[in-house]
């Protein structure tokens, strides 16, 4: 059952990911990216990370992607113009990417032979209770610094995007 679920949602994630890269219209890319994020949320649930799965749906698939689609519509972004790519990029790009991927997959298979495997429900330390406990004890300083980062980001976004007042 776990294997079937994993295969289905991994397939959806990969197909949507390919779609993100291949679509020429930004809106199609954005909708495909929502598909990737949704299926990743299911995989997080499979790994026992229920809080992260919820945050993934709310923050990524919800807030961030709405922001993206909002900007795409605001700027009226159309189909991407076809441009001649450089010769080297066309010649080397795909082979280099495939070899990078093959190398990564080989390392992963070598480092983690099928000794450890994921069973749904075996790890239950990812609830909101555990995350909150760790967040406010061990990771309190990073948490506070993150709040300052968000404050700065809000100010920066407002300053950058406001209308120039003369």
């Amino acid at each position, binding site marked *: 059952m776990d294997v079937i679920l*994993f295969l289905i949602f991994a397939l959806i994630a990969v197909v949507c990911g390919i779609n993100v*890269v291949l679509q020429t219209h*930004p809106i199609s890319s954005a909708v495909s990216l929502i598909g990737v994020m949704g299926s990743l949320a299911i995989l997080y649930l*499979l790994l026992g990370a229920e809080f992260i799965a919820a945050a993934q749906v709310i923050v990524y698939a919800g807030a961030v992607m709405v922001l993206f689609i909002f900007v795409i519509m*605001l700027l009226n972004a159309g189909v*991407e113009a076809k441009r001649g790519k450089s010769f080297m990029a066309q010649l080397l790009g795909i082979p280099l*990417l495939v070899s990078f991927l093959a190398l*990564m997959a080989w390392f992963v298979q070598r480092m983690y032979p099928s000794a*450890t495997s994921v069973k749904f429900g075996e790890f239950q330390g990812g609830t909101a209770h555990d995350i909150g406990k760790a967040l406010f004890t061990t990771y309190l300083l990073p948490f506070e610094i993150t709040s300052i980062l968000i404050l700065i980001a809000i100010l920066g976004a407002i300053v950058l*995007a406001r209308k120039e007042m003369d």
Partner: protein
Amino acid sequence: MSAVPISWFLTLSAILFALGIAGFLFRRNIITIFMSIELMLNAVNLSFVTFSYQLKKVDGHLFTFFVMVVAAAEAAVGLAIILTVFKNRQTLNIDEVDSMKD
């Protein structure tokens, strides 16, 4: 066999990361490039959660949480920059935004 090997999750993460790199390098629309960066961040998040499962610790989830927060802040600032660039140049093509080259 009802359990998924941990290496499958890591391989899926590598595939998504490679797709993100491909989008980042081959696309010309600045918004699509930005979305490719988000795709790469998501791939890394999957790795974090997988390792967290393997070590049976919650720390990986916290890292994922912080990555999400930083990604949200990055999206807000980045899209504001895109808006400003579009206001000044009327283009979203990164080949035409090259004044730092000359």
